[in-house]
Every structure is written in C-alpha cells, then in structure tokens.
C-alpha cells in the first residue's frame, strides 16, 4: 500500500519543478509545457484525494481541468504563433511591452 502522502509529495515536487520551469526558461513554448506540468501535478493530487474522500468530485475536477487545459493550449499556442509572426521570436524576455 502506498500512503497518500507519497502521492501528494510527488505532486508537490512536480508542481515545484513546473514552477521552476516557468521561472527559469525563456522559451515561451517550454514555459507553456511547464504550466502543463503544474496542471498535471495538481491533477495528481486531485485523484489522490479522490481515493481519500471516496467521492467522484476529484476525478470530475480533473476532467474539467483537462478541458480547460486543452482550451488554454489551443489559445495559448495560437497566441505564440501570432506573436512569433510579428516578432520573429518566442523569447519571452523580448516581449516586454508591459514594462511600466
């Protein structure tokens, strides 16, 4: 038997790695992937809790997260493509028009 805490710790590790990816990578595609990783980590935790609480809510939440993630990826990638067209780059550090 595997304690739930193991899964949760694994989820935390994956989430931290994803967050780290967002923080350190300049390639916007990879940043995107890291976000997906974070979502996955969260999903893992949800499914684990499903077993703890004996209810479907967690799984259903995962289902919705997947749908949202799919939508997000579609729009996000389209944005990246559009940005690449105008800037010829996916380097996130070059996109600094938010600078105050």
């Amino acid at each position, binding site marked *: *038997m*595997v*304690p*739930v*805490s*193991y*899964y*949760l*710790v*694994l989820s*935390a*590790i*994956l*989430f*931290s*790695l*994803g*967050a*780290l*990816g967002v923080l*350190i*990578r300049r390639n916007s*595609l*990879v940043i*995107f*992937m890291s976000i*997906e*990783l974070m979502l*996955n980590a969260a*999903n*893992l935790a949800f*499914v*684990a809790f*499903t*077993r*703890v609480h*004996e209810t*479907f809510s967690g*799984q*259903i939440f*995962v*289902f*919705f997260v*997947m*749908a*949202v*993630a*799919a*939508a997000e*990826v*579609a*729009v996000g*990638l*389209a*944005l990246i*493509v*559009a940005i*690449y067209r105008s800037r010829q780059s*996916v*380097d996130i550090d070059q996109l600094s028009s938010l600078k105050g």
Partner: protein
Amino acid sequence: MSLELILFFVLAIIAIATALGMLLSRSAVYSALYLVVNFVSVAIFYLLLDAPFIALSQIAVYAGAIMVLFLFVIMLIGLETLGGELNWRQLVWPLAMGILLLVQGVFLVIQRVGRDVYIGQTGTQLSDPSLMARVLFTDYLLPFQVTAVLLLVAMIGAIVLSKREKSNQEA
C-alpha cells in the same frame, strides 16, 4: 516494500527525471518529448489510484492531443533551440523559490494529511466510468455544458488568432 510501493518509486523517479529533463533540455523538441514521458507516467499513477478513465483521458488528451499540438507548433515555427539559455546568476531567486515551494508543499502534506493515511479499498466503485458519467451528467451538467462552450470559444479564438489577415498581406 510491497510491489506497489516499488512501482510507485520507480514511476516517481521517472516522473521527476523527465520533469527535470524537460526543464533543463536546450531543445524544445526534447522538452516536449520528456514531457510526454512524464505524462505517461502520471497516467500510470492514475491507474494505480483506481482512476482508469482519467488515466486514459490523460493519455489521449495530454500525451496525444496537447503534446502533438506543441510539436506541431515547434515544427511550424522551425525553432528548436534558444542559445545561451541558462544563466546561473539569474537562477538564484527562482531556485530559491522553487525549493521553498517544495519544502512548504511537503510540510503541508505532512501537517495536514499525515504520513499514515492509506488509500482505501473501495476503489472498485470509484473506478467505474459509468458511475462517474452519471455524476458528470447529472450534478455537473451545467459546468459540463459551459465547458463545451468554452472549448468552442477557444477553438474560434485559436482560429482567429492564427489566421493571417488578408489585408495585411496585401498591404
């Protein structure tokens, strides 16, 4: 150590390793491929957790659709590497934050869940997709519909965003 535990650790190492690989690989293609492996391992975790429907969705949606989309985009842009990526001086804060986050997460798990909560044995019921479908289409019908709309909007949005405007080309 039971077989299950061994399996867990093996998969956990694979998942962490592939996550690190994605994180550190210079080529976006490699990153994507690492991530695919990671997703697959997570899918196996779902199976272990008696959630076969989620596991298959994971494979289909993440490993299949989303990552393929990523690869398409990478190919479309034709850019695989970004030179001179990691600058360790800049990494101090992110690393510190990542570690802090990790430590906090682990402590939270220990504090709130405890080490000795085991997964119950009623998993057979939870693993039945038809039961899950019943809940999904009754209690969660409205969110489900909204999600459908969301996906539609996302689809249209993606098309509009990636469509080249004719007038721009002509001009």
